[in-house]
């Protein structure tokens, strides 16, 4: 679910703004460091850090889109690609300078605990994290389905020119969308820090994973991103259990190739 939420952010941004955020994993890494900083300074639990970190990332995303990315919207895709890769590299190096190369994490009491349900042992932190990821995703769905702003954003995604003709402030809506996508990845980062240790170089691996998930689920499809996240997570776990743990990545990339061959638009994506 956390993978799904991370990919959901990427999918939302691409679905509306049509810019692929190649700094997505790096943004999640920054969110993880933000949680570590808050935990170190004030002992704020990662679950309580979700709101302030998500709000800060919403603002960061909004500013990035309106100040940096907007001028590139109409430029060729390779310009957008170089821009986002440059942003990612700057982020990694800034994190290296500020936090150093060492792996860091937070340690909370429930992190090593698990629920015993019959023969099953369910990791507490993972279960809570999945709950938060699910709640955030449902919130985002409701926002896009039920609110006027959400509907306006969907209108922009469906027909950019039409949205401008009817008087929608497209630039503002794009920035809002980028902010929402960034907030999603921030929430995912808050949850992820309970499960993995963070280093500045962690970002590219997560960017790649997010891509695999959204391509499998369907680029631009919100339910597709969530379904892709769950599918990749479960298939990796099963491959590890029944084949060999080293085959986990092989299976997820195998799935990616299969989807690209048989259903290029992704499992829940629409044909262009």
């Amino acid at each position, binding site marked *: 679910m956390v993978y799904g939420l991370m990919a959901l952010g990427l999918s939302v941004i691409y679905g509306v703004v049509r810019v692929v955020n190649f700094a997505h994993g790096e943004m999640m890494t920054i969110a993880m460091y933000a949680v570590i900083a808050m935990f170190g300074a004030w002992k704020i639990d990662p679950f309580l850090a979700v709101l302030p970190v998500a709000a800060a990332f919403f603002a960061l995303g909004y500013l990035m889109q309106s100040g940096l990315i907007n001028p590139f919207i109409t430029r060729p895709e390779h310009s957008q690609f170089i821009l986002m890769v440059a942003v990612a590299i700057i982020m990694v190096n800034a994190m*290296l300078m500020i936090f150093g*190369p*060492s*792996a860091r*994490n937070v*340690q909370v009491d429930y*992190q*090593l*605990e*698990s629920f015993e349900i019959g023969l099953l*042992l369910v*990791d507490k932190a993972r279960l809570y994290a999945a709950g938060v990821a699910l709640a955030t995703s449902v919130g985002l769905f409701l926002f896009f389905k039920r609110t006027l702003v959400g509907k306006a954003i969907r209108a922009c995604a469906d027909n950019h020119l039409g949205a401008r003709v009817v008087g929608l402030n497209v630039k503002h809506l794009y920035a809002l969308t980028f902010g929402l996508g960034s907030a999603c990845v921030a929430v995912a980062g808050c949850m992820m820090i309970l*499960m*993995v*240790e963070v*280093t500045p*170089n*962690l970002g590219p*691996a997560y960017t790649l994973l997010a891509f695999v998930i959204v391509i499998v689920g369907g680029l631009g499809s919100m339910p597709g991103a969530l379904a892709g996240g769950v599918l990749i997570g479960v298939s*990796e*776990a099963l491959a*590890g*259990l029944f084949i*060999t*743990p*080293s085959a*986990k*990545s092989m299976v997820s990339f195998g799935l990616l190739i299969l989807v690209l061959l048989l259903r290029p638009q992704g499992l829940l994506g629409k044909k262009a």
Partner: protein
Amino acid sequence: MNRRDFNKAAAAVGAAAAFSPLNRAFAQAQKLKVGVILPRSGVQGLIGQSCQMGADIAPALIKDMLGVDVELMNADWETNIDVARTRAERLIQEGAHVLVGPFDSGAASAIAQVAEQRGVPFVINIAAAPPITEQGYKFVFRNFPTAIDLTVNGLGLIGELFRATNVAPRTAVFMHVNDTFGQAMRGGISATLPRLTQLPFKIVETISYDPAAKDLSVEVSKAKATKADFLLLVCRLNDAIILRREIVKQRWNMMGIISPGSPGLYEDQYAKTLGKLSDYAISNNPWYNPKTRMTAAVIKQLAKQFPKDRINNHGANISYTFESILIAADAYKRSGSTNPKQLADAIRQTNIVDRVSLGGPIKFNAKGQVEGNLSACVQNRDGTPRVILPESAAEAKPVFPWPDYKRS
């Protein structure tokens, strides 16, 4: 003076100059530039930083001991083998007389090729894959046990541990990182274990995993399912931390974790990150000898430069990295030259008896490999790795199984 007299006089002056001690003093007036390549960032960053401390204390200590000026040229290979190769090239271009590092077999293989092509001596501090010194290289030297030696020493100590604690586990699950080092260790264990008939256990399953893995829950659940008595582990640092946490989460009841010879379990960061959970893990590793004069000098210098750190938490990282620079400086002193060929010839003649690490004198065989490096059985106790075997060097009594174990 006629032409013949002049020639004779010139030859005499030339010969005197060539063999004069002044010449040697002049040659040594320059510094020995040592290119230190370590993984100071990336997955192995913490271990690289630990090794770096062994390098950082070397110049002052070596100046005191040998009167040789050593200049370190530090490079970070970022736990990326391609970067290791380019850093080695660059250090040589920038004038390094000798290369030292890199705490990894894959990186060592890559740097060895560069060193051999460029004809610059390369003294490996830590890397165990046997093929590195089996290639017929002339400029590559290793003062560290090969994976075969590590496993023979490590498995031998496991036998001693079981005898000392009166325990005879019957089964083990073997988990190992799937990098060059891990594969070499796997090969070593497969080759050695069947011959060690005195060991009471057999390996019921072997599970390899990526050292950069962020989640090892599947691997641990698979290992737990074997119901093995203990975990035989060849790991790095980050994965060792993730594994230990996962063992607690999955409530895996076993006798304990024993490494037959790998980093991870004794590292400072392992104890800092895991706290009490780091206790009772056992590593049979190349280690420093607490009883030599050289070790005393290293501990003193460490306290001076790194007052917050203790040698216990850096074990082989500090001792072997320091020794590799010592080997280079000693060769430089004897050869009186920074010429790579002469330095390599001098390294080949090394005979350092008083050393930091456990084992016999540092002497290279024809392949450039030091034989006779030994391991110690080290157990974490109250966050500090303590030697528990061999008895002659023991600082604490062995505890096995660990206190968490519930006999069924």
